[in-house]
């Protein structure tokens, strides 16, 4: 069941001219504001910059937003940043959805009307998904402070030494009676033609 107390904020980014050069971002902002349960829609020149992020946080406080859609670039670039941003304003990090209107729209579309229509659709789809987002708790699991290195050739030896030098316990398991691997059998090794062991 969709909650009926949804208050979604949509933040449309110009990305300088990267998005605004091909998408009518003002029309997009207006359109976003008409979608059901969207409480407010705001346009920024650079949403990822500090002022843009502050605006998101301020809006969350002032309008009691409980879902946030950022219409900007690919989640691969800025999702972690915007998650942090909404978390900073007290929202669970999983209540964010990104609408990729740059890589998937403004940058790959030749016609402004087409691009604007596509951007509207992308935002509509993102808002639809945002309605089904719920706060999620990340399970925290303990970490045993020790490592197992399997294989005692030069790679295993080096890995074991490095981990051990960083202060962790290491078990180095080698199936042969001695460590060394192939390298131990080599006489001289390239590139310097010097002893292997």
């Amino acid at each position, binding site marked *: 069941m969709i909650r009926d107390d949804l208050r979604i904020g949509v933040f449309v980014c110009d990305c300088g001219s990267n998005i605004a050069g091909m998408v009518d971002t003002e029309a997009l902002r207006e359109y976003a504001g008409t979608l059901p349960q969207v409480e407010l829609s705001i346009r920024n020149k650079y949403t990822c910059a500090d002022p843009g992020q502050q605006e998101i946080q301020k809006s969350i406080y002032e309008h009691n937003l409980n879902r946030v859609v950022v219409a900007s670039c*690919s989640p691969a670039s800025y999702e972690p940043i915007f998650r942090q941003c909404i978390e900073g304003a007290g929202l669970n990090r999983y209540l964010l959805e990104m609408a990729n209107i740059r*890589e*998937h*729209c403004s*940058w*790959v*579309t030749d016609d402004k009307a087409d*691009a604007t229509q596509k951007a509207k*659709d*992308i935002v*509509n*789809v993102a808002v*639809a*998904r945002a309605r*089904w987002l719920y706060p999620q708790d*990340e*399970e*925290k*699991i*303990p*970490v*045993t*402070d*020790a490592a*197992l290195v*399997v*294989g005692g*050739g*030069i*790679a*295993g*030896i*080096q*890995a*074991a*030494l490095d*981990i*051990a*030098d*960083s202060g*962790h316990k290491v*078990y180095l*398991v*080698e199936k*042969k*009676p*001695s*460590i*060394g691997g*192939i390298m*131990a*059998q080599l*006489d*001289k090794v*390239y*590139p*310097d*033609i010097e002893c*292997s*062991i």
Partner: protein
Amino acid sequence: MMDVGRHPNIELLTYSEVEDIRGYVGNFTAHIRRKARYVDEDECTGCGDCAKECPVVVPDEFQMGLGSRKAIYIPFPQAVPSAYIVEDKECLGQNPIACGKCIEACEKNCISFDVQDEHLEINVGAIVVATGMDVYDPTALDEYGYRRFPNVVTSMEFERLVSTGGPLEGHLGRPGDLKQPRKIGFIQCVGSRTQNPEKGNPYCSNVCCMNTIKAAQYLKDNYPEIDISVFYMDLRAFGKGFEELLMRSKASGVRFIRGLPGDIEEVDDTGDLRVTVENTTAKRLEKHEFDMLVLAVGATPAMGTEPVRRLVSLSKSPSGFLKEAHSKLKPVDTPTKGVYIAGAAESPKDIRESVTQAGAASSKASILLNKSKFSIEAITSVLDEDICKKCGQCASVCPFAAITWEKKQLPKLISAACVGCGNCAAECRYGAIKMRHFSDQAVYAQIDAMLEENSANKIVAFACNWCSYAGADTAGVGRMAYPPNARIIRTMCSARVNPEFIWYAFKKGAPVVLISGCHYVDCHYIDANRSTVRRMDGLWDGLEKAGLRTDRLLLEWCSAAEGGRWQTIMKETEKKRQSVTSEEIDGTRTALEDAKIPRPRNPKASDENQDADFVCMRCGYSWKGNYRSNVERICPQCRSNSIRWLKKKKNK
């Protein structure tokens, strides 16, 4: 090597094997069998008195069988631990009555036959797999006469022959008669770079060119009078200082002849070898005679890797070496969280590269171990116990063994091992498995939203997070324009796409549905996309049964780097969309109303082996083959992956 033995943080377990590994990131439990050495590792001083008395003489594997050792031995002088060991399969008798000469000889009383294998259970947070490579055995290559002719040796044997610690203590001699060779030939690419599986492996073994150049230079430095020829296909000297070494060896008079010998024969009873080769530079057939031939043997995946690979659910590259999580961005990670790879286990590589990779793997492991708690992204699967019918199908498709199931029991979902691919959720026909954050409802809501208006103009496209979605990003970064009709639903893996989503999209008026994912071998979830392929075949069958055009459903693999491919996929898919008429779209709803949602199982082995038709949904090209003959599902004509495998109908 010595540092390892002395490091206070390292517990060295040699002559030991990992028998079992359970658990998940941060919390692995490993069972290690420490085999009995019969010599107290800490007490042994390595004096060797015991070995002098031992009556058993066997070939020494460290010397590649070119020397001998006793049943009680130290593997090599610098061995770590620096202790003797009794090979119990060779020892005459494990009690003093049978033999026991070594026990008598050991003044420190370090030897005891009462000890047994030890079983250890250790708990660790991270695992580094560094099981290395094996060296190719050229016995099968009849033309090179290895084992038939004593003076044909492998590069590994050559290392022992020239070593001061080797069987000849550094006096260069050929195995047949120990005479110092005056003419030596090296043959490259033995067991490497061949398309004939009987003659070796298709990949380049990476170290053998440089190893030969090194060996040739070493000979020239120490025995300038020896005449040296190298037979090669092309020389791979691409690393730092490599070209310089190659130039030096050429300047020292090493002869490089382009062409691999077709035949080798022994010259009468001299032990010398006559090589017939097509010199492809001079374009003529040549014969050369040598006192000794060295085969530059390639590398093969280590036998020792396989059991460990299975225990921690890693995948293999087509070459058989371990597969990394991402070929460029995550070269030491694996799909299993908390498990890293280093060295030649991942691909044949030299020492410098192995050390570099080991450093990277250990830093990854340390980052994890520095944390007291590890948080798992909340995208894992959750079971609705009220809906579950206890069939266990979910457990059978989980690539990470994160679901365990026993007959008539509810499956157990181990969230710490779950990476959120969603394959189980797509597999469950009862909808009992929910994905946190990537819920079914959200997907339906996305489909509704994208088809709300103008649905006839839209393409519903599913894109996996790692490859195809990222490939679309790359198209964007490269400003590769394409028609604006597709609307994307991001899933973690193509295997998340439940057949019900597709039925739903068609019923809602989608003219075309596209599923895209990582290339078959690049799947970020080991082999979850094999489930995608299986479901696609079922869906195409289902569409056909419902009387609909099967080519309205398409499948494409696209990697994160392939922006251009994404652009092509978009253009081609738009062409397809334009071919779908409004009558067809209107008819879809009724046609699918009562049509069962296809949920195919994996084809049986007997079906897989049968030749059947492959048909390309993009271009219509068709050909015959069995299920395994085209796993990547590539159309030979148009390179599309929308390839349907038409299983033969049983004759009724």
